[in-house]
């Protein structure tokens, strides 16, 4: 049986599911290898890959990507339903199968929930799927009535023949509709005709969560399942030299200790026993070449990138920066630094797998079920079509569970060693913190040349950092993917696309790939470069004696969308209006993930360095706002994610190892520190932007600019704890 989420689960369903909670088999899909693929009686008729209609008029809309709290499991089906003209109250959402996606030539397309792109990259084919199904249902009804389809309309899961007023429900004609050929062209609704898009719609997954019956990867339960705890070499790139498990042999519950070359796994009859035993397994690590590396040596490496004359890629060149800077009446130069950051998903990395008879079943919290499937197939050495990745809710993702599939390779390697037995592999928080694919650290030099009136004529940035695309994705940095050969677009995001009217611009990238693994984060380059860009713009405004808002407005006259969100947000925040004594404002604006965002912070800083944020106003223009309540939630969440990072977030390296290990030394923001966040959703229409990540981009610079206004101290590196500042 596929997991189906009811829009408003009936009480009866709730009690039934409660009784079965933990039964991964009852809630998950039928496994491929160990058990026969579960047939679905009374499953309804598939009109197309996205739409299934049941005889009782129940509507099943399939969802291909992942749900990790970003709300796309609700907003993506809204796009299908908008065109399908179905009764939203009868809609259930079902995950599309990754295995079926392989076998059906990617009928569901890209399954990755990454880069805030679920809506913007799939909106067109999802709306077309809904419209196509609607046209087929109308055609089937028209054939039945022997009338022209043009005389029929569809609404609320019913087809009506205008002249005769006859009505028939979708469920009655679904069988006939499924047999028709799909129309090649369908006309999509005009935005003004939308009934569902733009309305605050309740998320499907919330009732399950609140009742404690949501199933995450960690909750997978299979008959005869064993549990594995793992230890990886504390120095990145190291491996097991020797292992002695004599101390745990014969201990209660311990089944096997595996040396899997790059890690050791203890397999036991519950996870706690496995984890406890792991401490008593003596592992001699071959730490490799990086055993002496430190944060200081990494900084040196990046600094050399800032100063280098060679191995530099010029990402953007407008006019002649060198000439204009040389001739400038006033010159500004600064260096900014942002540290490595861990993801710290609340659910640690894990993977449950069964390898049997050349088939693999995987249950894992993944942002990319297709990538997990490929990683599982490669690890087990079986064809793609012999693998299923069973879909579960993710306990946070934030980019950790998409590009890197290390946890799936581990889980499947263990299951392969235990062939025939399901094994649930789970990391401790310490493993999770110390074996992440971190948001890259970056060192950035910026320069600006101003004329006599303080107008910037020349802008320069050079970013030195590790490229995610070349080290993790292993994608050659070449056009059209990269703006210029040798440039990682994430590394120069929001600098390369600087929208301000400055005639001479030079943006450079020093790709300096260090040994610390890096990966995508909730807002990658946009979590660091806007901090630099918008703080340095503030430095220029201050040096010119200009109001930071008016200064930006003047430079954005030719970038109307940037200008509009800046103005809308400033207006909502009351920029320029009087403030109580000791309270100061800061402002910033950026574009990212297809959306425009701005932030205004109002804060005070006391003599102990306690920062009290009175108000944080966040504005976003995502083009079309599909589910406004969810956008508000994403902006509120963005504030927490970025405040946590900017005040405390820092992964440091000593002896090649990550120094932080758990929440006591990798600090997370708590409820008592949550400031008042006001959200302004200023959707101007005409485009589809992301909402999960872009809201973060403007927060750090807006707050640091307000801190400058309050204290005269310019913040050029994060986190703020290193400047003696904390969140009150």
């Amino acid at each position, binding site marked *: 049986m596929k997991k189906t989420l009811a829009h408003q689960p009936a*009480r009866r369903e*709730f*009690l039934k599911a*409660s009784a079965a*909670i*933990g039964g991964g088999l009852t809630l998950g899909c039928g496994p491929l290898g160990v058990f026969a693929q579960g047939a679905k009686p009374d499953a309804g008729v598939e009109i197309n890959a996205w739409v299934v209609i049941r005889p009782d008029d129940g509507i099943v809309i399939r969802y291909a990507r992942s*749900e*990790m*709290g*970003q709300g796309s499991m609700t907003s993506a089906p809204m796009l299908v339903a908008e065109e399908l003209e179905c009764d939203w109250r009868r809609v259930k959402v079902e995950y599309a199968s990754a295995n079926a996606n392989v076998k059906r030539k990617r009928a569901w397309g890209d399954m990755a929930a990454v880069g805030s792109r679920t809506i913007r990259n799939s909106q067109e084919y999802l709306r077309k799927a809904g419209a196509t199904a609607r046209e087929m249902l109308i055609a089937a009804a028209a054939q039945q009535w022997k009338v022209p389809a043009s005389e029929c309309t569809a609404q609320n899961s019913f087809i009506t023949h205008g002249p005769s007023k006859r009505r028939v429900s979708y469920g009655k004609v679904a069988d006939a509709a499924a047999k028709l050929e799909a129309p090649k062209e369908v006309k999509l609704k005009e935005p003004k005709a939308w009934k569902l898009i733009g309305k605050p719609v*309740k*998320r499907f*997954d*919330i009732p*399950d*969560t*609140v*009742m*404690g*019956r*949501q*199933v*995450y990867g*960690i909750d997978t*339960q299979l008959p005869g399942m064993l*549990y594995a705890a793992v230890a990886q070499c504390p120095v990145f790139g190291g491996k097991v030299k020797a292992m002695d498990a004599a101390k745990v042999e014969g201990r*209660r519950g311990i089944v096997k200790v595996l040396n899997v070359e790059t890690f050791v796994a203890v397999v036991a009859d*519950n*996870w*706690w026993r496995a984890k406890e035993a792991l401490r008593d397994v003596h592992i001699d690590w071959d730490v490799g070449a990086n055993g002496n590396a430190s944060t200081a040596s990494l900084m040196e490496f990046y600094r050399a990138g800032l100063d280098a004359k060679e191995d530099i890629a010029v990402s953007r060149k407008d006019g002649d920066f060198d000439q204009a800077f040389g001739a400038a009446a006033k010159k500004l130069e600064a260096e900014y630094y942002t540290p490595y950051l861990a993801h*710290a*998903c*609340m*659910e*640690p990395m894990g993977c449950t797998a069964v390898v049997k008879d050349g088939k693999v079943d995987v249950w894992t919290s993944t942002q990319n079920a297709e990538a997990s499937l490929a990683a599982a197939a490669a690890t087990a050495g079986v064809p793609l079509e012999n693998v299923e990745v069973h879909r579960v*809710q*993710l*306990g*946070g*993702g934030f980019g950790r569970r998409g590009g890197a599939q290390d946890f799936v390779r581990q889980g499947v390697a263990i299951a392969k060693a235990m062939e025939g037995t399901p094994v649930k592999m789970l990391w401790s*928080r310490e493993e999770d913190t110390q074996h992440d694919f971190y948001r890259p650290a970056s060192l950035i030099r910026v320069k600006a040349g101003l004329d006599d009136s303080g107008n910037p004529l020349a802008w320069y940035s050079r970013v030195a950092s590790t490229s995610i695309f070349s080290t993790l994705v292993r994608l050659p940095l070449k056009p059209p993917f990269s703006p210029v050969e040798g440039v990682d677009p994430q590394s120069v995001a929001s600098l390369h696309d600087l929208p301000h009217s400055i005639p001479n611009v030079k943006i450079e990238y020093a790709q300096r790939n260090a040994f610390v693994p890096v990966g995508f984060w909730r807002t990658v380059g946009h979590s660091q470069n806007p901090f630099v860009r918008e703080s340095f713009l503030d430095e220029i405004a201050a040096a010119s004696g200009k109001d930071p808002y008016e200064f930006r407005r003047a430079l954005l006259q030719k970038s109307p969308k940037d200008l509009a969100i800046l103005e809308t947000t400033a207006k909502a925040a009351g920029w320029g209006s009087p403030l109580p004594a000791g309270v100061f404002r800061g402002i910033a604006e950026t574009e990212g993930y297809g959306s425009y965002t701005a932030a205004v912070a109002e804060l005070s800083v006391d003599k102990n360095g306690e920062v009290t944020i009175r108000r944080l106003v966040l504005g976003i223009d995502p083009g079309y706002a599909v589910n406004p*309540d*969810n956008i508000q*939630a994403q902006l*509120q*969440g*963005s*504030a*927490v*994610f970025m405040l946590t990072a900017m005040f405390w977030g820092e992964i440091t390296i000593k002896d090649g190892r990550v120094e932080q290990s*758990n*929440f*006591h030394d990798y600090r*997370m*923001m*708590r*409820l*008592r520190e*949550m400031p008042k*966040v006001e959200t302004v959703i200023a959707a101007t229409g005409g485009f589809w932007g992301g909402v999960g990540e872009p809201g973060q981009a403007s927060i750090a610079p807006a707050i640091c600019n307000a801190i400058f206004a309050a204290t005269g101290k310019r913040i050029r590196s994060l986190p703020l704890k290193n400047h003696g500042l904390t969140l009150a």
Partner: protein
Amino acid sequence: MIELTVNGKKHNVDVEPEMPLLWVLRDVLDVKGPKFGCGIAQCGACTVHLNGEPVRSCSVPVSAAAGQKVLTIEGLAQKGQLHPVQRAWIDNEVPQCGYCQSGQIMAAVALLARNPSPSDKDIDAAMTNICRCGTYARIRTAIHAAAKSPKSAKA
């Protein structure tokens, strides 16, 4: 054998006395609402009630719960009626990924049981669980809403 009452049902478990309550619930009794987040009582994802008091079950040895009453998120709804805190969580669309939310809800239920109309400061002090998605603003709103709900006093 250690005897435990979980959500009103008696169990006898044959485990080491030092095994954390969380792992007895999850891996032995198949009660998976309480979640593992840190293992050191920092995040609160594993929060359950032990005789009505919120505890971080990852750091409570099962022997300390012997013969006592454990309540988890699964036992919160009574006779098919959601607890007012659960109702408020749904009405205010609080969860995002939801992983921390069973712990957040159990912490909120315990707060309201001893303080039926908490101030913002009371909420600040009681709600120390970590939410990585950032649902704090809505948690606060939902606690105030649950406090105003007529049934909350009986919960």
